[in-house]
C-alpha cells in the first residue's frame, strides 16, 4: 500500500488536466477520477513503513459486503472511474471477489494493491474472472533475506514471486511496487531487473515517506543523501534503457528535496480514500491529524456531499488557509504547501508549511536530524501490528 504513501498515484493522472479544462481547479473540485478503497487494515505483513495509521481500524468496525457494494455503486454514479482495492491486505477480506465483480458490474476499472501472500492461483483466477483489470504487488527487496525481514513474514518474498508469475499467466498487467529505504536501496539495480524478469509493465520505486509507522521507524529507514543520489542515477539510466519495456515511476524522499511534494495533488483536489470503517479521507494518513472530524459513508450524507462540503475537506483546500511563507510563495499553486500530515507530524500544526520545504523555518533542524539518523547505526525496526508496534529482536528474521 505504499503507492499512495507518496501521493504520486493521483499525480499520475495525466488525463486530469484535459478533463478539468474549462474550469478553474482552484474554484471547483470535480469528483476524483480514482478512489482508494482501504477495505481492511488487517495484514499478515508487518512492514515498518506501513502507510496505514498507527491506530488501525479493527475487523469489527469494517464496512460490510453490502455497505461496500453500495459505496461502489455510488462512486460509479457520481463519476469515479477507477477503484483501487487496498488495505491492509485487501485479500484478507473473504468477499473481495464479490466486491471486484460488483465494481465491474457498475463500470469501475479495478486495481488490486496487494502484498500477495494470501493469494493462491484459484483465487487470483477468480478475481480476474470477476473483471479485475490490474494487479500491483509490493516487494520489500529482491531476495528473501532482506525482503522477509522487512516484511516480518517468513516466506513472503517467494510467495510474491509466485503470484507475480500467475498474474502474467492470467494476462493481467502487473505493477511491481518497491518501497525503498536505507536498508534495501543497495538492491535497487536487482529490483529493476526482477521487475523486468517478472514481465511487469510498471515499476514504482517509491522511497518511504515519513509519517505514521515510517516516522516511528525513521532512524532505521532514512537513507543517506549519497544513497538517494545513487538511486536517482540508477533509475534515470534504467528509464532510458527500458523505454517501451518497463515504465519506472520514481519518488524521491522529500526530506532531501528543496520543495515539498504536491501531496495527493493538493488536499481535497483530486483524491479521496475510504477507510475500512467507511470514513472519507483526503489522504490515507489524514486520520493522524487530530482535531479534524471526518465524515463516514455511514452518515446521512452522500459521498459527493462529503467531498464537496465537509469541514475536513474544506479546511486545507485551495490556498486561502495558507500562512507565510506559503501565502506569498510563487509555488503555492504548484505544491500547495506540501503535505498536511507531515506538517502535523513534524510541527504539531497541520496548517504550517510542510518542513520538507527549505522555506520552512523548521527545515534546517529536521533535515539535520534526518541526516544524523541516516548516518547512525540504529537498524532495528518497530514492526507494524494492531498492538501499536513490536520492536525487532535478535530472533526476528522474518518470523
Amino acid at each position: 500500500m505504499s503507492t499512495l504513501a507518496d501521493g504520486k498515484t493521483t499525480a499520475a493522472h495525466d488525463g486530469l488536466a484535459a478533463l478539468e479544462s474549462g474550469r478553474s481547479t482552484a474554484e471547483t473540485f470535480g469528483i476524483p477520477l480514482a478512489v482508494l478503497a482501504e477495505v481492511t487494515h488487517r495484514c499478515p505483513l508487518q512492514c515498518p513503513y506501513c502507510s496505514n495509521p498507527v491506530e488501525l481500524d479493527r475487523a469489527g468496525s469494517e464496512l460490510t459486503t453490502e455497505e461496500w457494494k453500495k459505496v461502489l455503486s455510488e462512486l460509479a454514479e457520481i463519476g469515479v472511474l477507477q477503484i483501487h482495492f487496498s488495505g491492509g491486505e485487501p485479500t484478507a477480506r473473504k468477499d473481495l471477489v464479490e466486491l471486484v465483480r460488483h465494481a465491474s458490474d457498475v463500470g469501475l476499472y479495478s486495481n488490486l494493491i496487494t502484498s500477495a501472500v494470501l493469494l493462491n492461483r484459484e483465487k487470483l483466477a477468480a478475481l480476474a474472472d470477476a473483471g479485475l483489470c490490474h494487479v500491483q504487488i509490493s516487494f520489500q527487496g529482491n531476495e528473501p533475506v532482506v525482503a522477509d525481514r522487512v516484511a516480518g513474514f517468513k516466506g513472503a518474498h517467494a510467495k510474491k514471486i509466485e503470484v507475480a508469475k500467475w498474474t502474467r499467466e492470467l494476462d493481467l498487467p502487473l505493477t511491481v511496487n518497491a518501497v525503498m529505504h536505507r536498508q534495501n536501496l543497495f538492491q535497487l539495480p536487482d529490483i529493476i531487473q526482477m521487475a523486468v524478469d517478472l514481465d511487469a509493465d510498471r515499476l514504482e520505486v517509491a522511497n518511504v515517506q515519513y509519517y505514521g509507522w515510517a516516522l516511528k521507524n525513521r532512524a532505521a529507514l532514512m537513507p543517506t543523501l549519497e544513497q538517494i543520489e545513487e538511486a536517482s542515477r540508477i533509475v534515470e539510466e534504467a528509464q532510458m534503457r527500458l523505454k517501451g519495456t518497463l515504465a519506472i515511476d520514481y519518488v524521491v524522499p522529500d526530506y532531501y528535496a528543496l520543495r515539498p511534494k504536491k501531496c495527493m495533488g493538493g488536499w481535497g483536489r483530486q483524491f479521496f480514500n475510504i477507510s475500512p470503517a467507511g470514513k472519507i479521507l483526503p489522504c490515507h494518513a489524514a486520520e493522524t491529524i487530530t482535531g479534524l472530524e471526518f465524515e463516514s459513508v455511514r452518515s446521512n450524507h452522500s459521498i459527493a456531499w462529503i467531498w464537496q462540503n465537509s469541514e475536513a475537506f474544506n479546511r486545507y483546500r485551495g490556498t486561502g488557509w495558507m500562512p507565510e511563507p506559503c501565502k506569498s510563495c510563487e509555488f503555492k499553486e504548484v505544491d500547495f504547501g506540501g503535505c498536511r500530515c507531515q506538517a502535523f507530524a513534524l510541527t504539531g500544526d497541520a496548517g504550517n508549511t510542510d518542513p520538507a520545504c527549505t522555506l520552512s523555518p523548521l527545515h534546517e533542524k529536521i533535515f539535520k536530524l534526518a541526516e544524523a539518523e541516516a548516518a547512525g547505526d540504529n537498524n532495528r525496526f518497530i514492526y507494524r501490528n494492531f498492538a501499536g508496534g513490536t520492536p525487532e529482536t535478535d530472533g526476528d528474521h522474518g518470523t
Partner: protein
Amino acid sequence: MAASRNISVSETSRPKLPRHTRLKFDETRQVWVILAPERVLAPDEIAVEVLQLCDGVRSVADMVDQLAAKYLADRGAIATDVIVMLQDLADKGFLTEARESTS
C-alpha cells in the same frame, strides 16, 4: 512476452486495446476516456473513432480505407496520421497487437 509492448504499427498491423485498457464514455464529464493502470486519458474525437476500429481483426489498412471513404480524404494523408497516432498510443502501452495467426 514483453515483445507485445514494443509493437511497430504498419498497414498490416491488427491493433487492439490490451485487456487492461478500457475505452469508455464518461457520462459525468461527457467525454470519452481511456482507462489504464494509474492513468486516465482523454482522447480527442478522431482518436476515439480510430480506437473504436481497433478490434484486433481489422488491419490498419482496412481502417484507413474506411476513414478515407467516410471523409472523402486523401488515403495517404490519413494513413500517415493514423499510423503516427496508433504508434504513439502503442509506445505508451495503450495498444497491443492481435497475435499473429500462423496459417
